[in-house]
């Protein structure tokens, strides 16, 4: 075998090794962002479960006073049960966004029930839920950041080529609760 052929062969091997290492790098990057999303969700799921454990007590307390909100409270109970049985992250995100909407509806109507707001039991449960909401807010932002990076990665060239082959799908974001986006009412004088 002539020396030039040998050098060309070695160059070909180096180029092939380069393509393989690029492919491995892309694959590892996709695996990393997918695991980051899962890790971020597991970290927030811990807090969500704690909040969901408070929900039955909150629902029972509210049911005694908020007789006109029976449908919303029952929907909240069903969603919570469904969440506990669910395994997939996307399904859990969808359910959590629905739970947030229903909770926002309930919290928006607390003002109409002064007897409820005066109840010690209700105040204790509401305090615990609010404390958890503050912790959840930070981790929600972190989770949404992870999802954003993941979604960009699977749609960016050349990662999208491998992502399509491996059937990587977009993840949904965790919605911000509606009371956090409501305008603050300013009172002067």
């Amino acid at each position, binding site marked *: 075998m002539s*020396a030039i052929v040998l*050098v060309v062969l070695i160059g070909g091997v180096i180029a092939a090794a380069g393509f393989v290492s690029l492919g491995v790098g892309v694959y590892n990057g996709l695996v990393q962002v997918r695991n*980051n999303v899962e890790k971020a969700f597991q970290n927030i799921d811990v807090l969500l479960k704690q909040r969901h454990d408070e929900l039955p007590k909150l629902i029972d307390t509210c049911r005694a006073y908020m007789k006109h909100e029976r449908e919303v409270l029952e929907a909240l109970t069903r969603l919570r049960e469904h969440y506990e049985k669910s395994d997939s992250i996307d399904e859990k995100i969808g359910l959590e966004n629905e739970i947030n909407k229903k909770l926002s509806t309930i919290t928006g109507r607390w003002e109409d029930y002064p007897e409820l707001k005066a109840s010690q039991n209700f105040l204790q449960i509401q305090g615990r839920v609010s404390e958890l909401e503050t912790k959840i807010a930070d981790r929600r932002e972190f989770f949404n950041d992870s999802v954003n990076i993941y979604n960009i990665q699977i749609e960016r060239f050349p990662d999208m080529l491998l992502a399509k082959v491996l059937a990587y799908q977009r993840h949904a974001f965790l919605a911000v609760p509606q009371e956090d986006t409501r305008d603050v009412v300013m009172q002067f004088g």
Partner: protein
Amino acid sequence: MGRKGLFSHWKANGPPSWVYRISILWRLPFVAIVLFMGAMAALVGTPIITGMAAGAFLIGIGLNLVFWVLFLPFSPARAADAAAALRDCFRLFCTALFMIPAVAAPFPGWVLLLFGALPDASFASAPELTTLLVLWGLCGFYYGTMGLVREWRWGLPQLQNIRNLPTAKAASAALGLVELRGTARAIDKNPTLYFKREFLVDEKLDVFAESLHPFELEDASGRVRVDPSGVPFTVYFPFITLFTSLLGRRPFFAVLRRRIKHGWWPNREFFLCDGDPVYVLGTVEIERDSKTGQESRVVRPPREARHHESVVESLMRPFRFRTRRAWQDVFVIADTEEADASKLLARGFRWRVFWSLFWTIGSTGLFTVL
């Protein structure tokens, strides 16, 4: 101080840093030139020049060994262990026999690749010379390939970690590798967290550098302590990282874009102060106060990186595949935004990959003598 007093002083305190610098700086260019001359002589076909180059090469190896033999027994840890010192000398001798040809291999290799050998080159009539040149090429090929492997296992994952990790909040950062962004706050009364000064004084480079002090990173959610002590940092320049890579180093980077230049290079100062914006990529650990028992979170470099590397370990780095530090470990401090730090680190990565390819492909040129 007489000669005896000088050696006693060095034995007690180690040689001064300028001696170390000279011992490193003169070797590589000198030996690279010698080997290049030797290769050209072998290719062109003049035995006298070949002989002179070979002689100069042997003198170069000998001088290297003299420096190492002089220095190693002076390092305090080795002073009492003569057998370990001799073992280190032998390992360094083997490393020098491999590393010096490896560094010089691509120069004649590229000449052969681009222009080919002359018809009456020496190796055409000397099969032993052909074998030597092929072995030389193999040394350079392995050296360049190790550089590519280092970038694949360490450089690329480092960039991926910066790009793929979401930014955590200081108050709620989980254990493990995290990325944080905020403002640096001094823990003690000294507002200077890091300072490095390089100035030319009387045509000599005068460098003064402080260690990076522990500080707190503050963002909207709270504060977390960052403790980079125990590991050496390199102020990051994309091209300079090439030289660290050639020596097999995987340093921890301080990406400091805020600097003061005084006239021409290298007169400049780098600093990180209280109130500066800071980006940190590190590992969150739990630290327990021994007196109060209180636990707190602290961001640190990886545990395995916090050990002192001996002179022998540092010289053998380019050829070690197994390392004490995990390949995936990373710790970066920057006074810029994440995107700017990522761009700078990516530029250094591309430099190192380019020159590793230069070494690998160039060294294959020596195989054309077959």
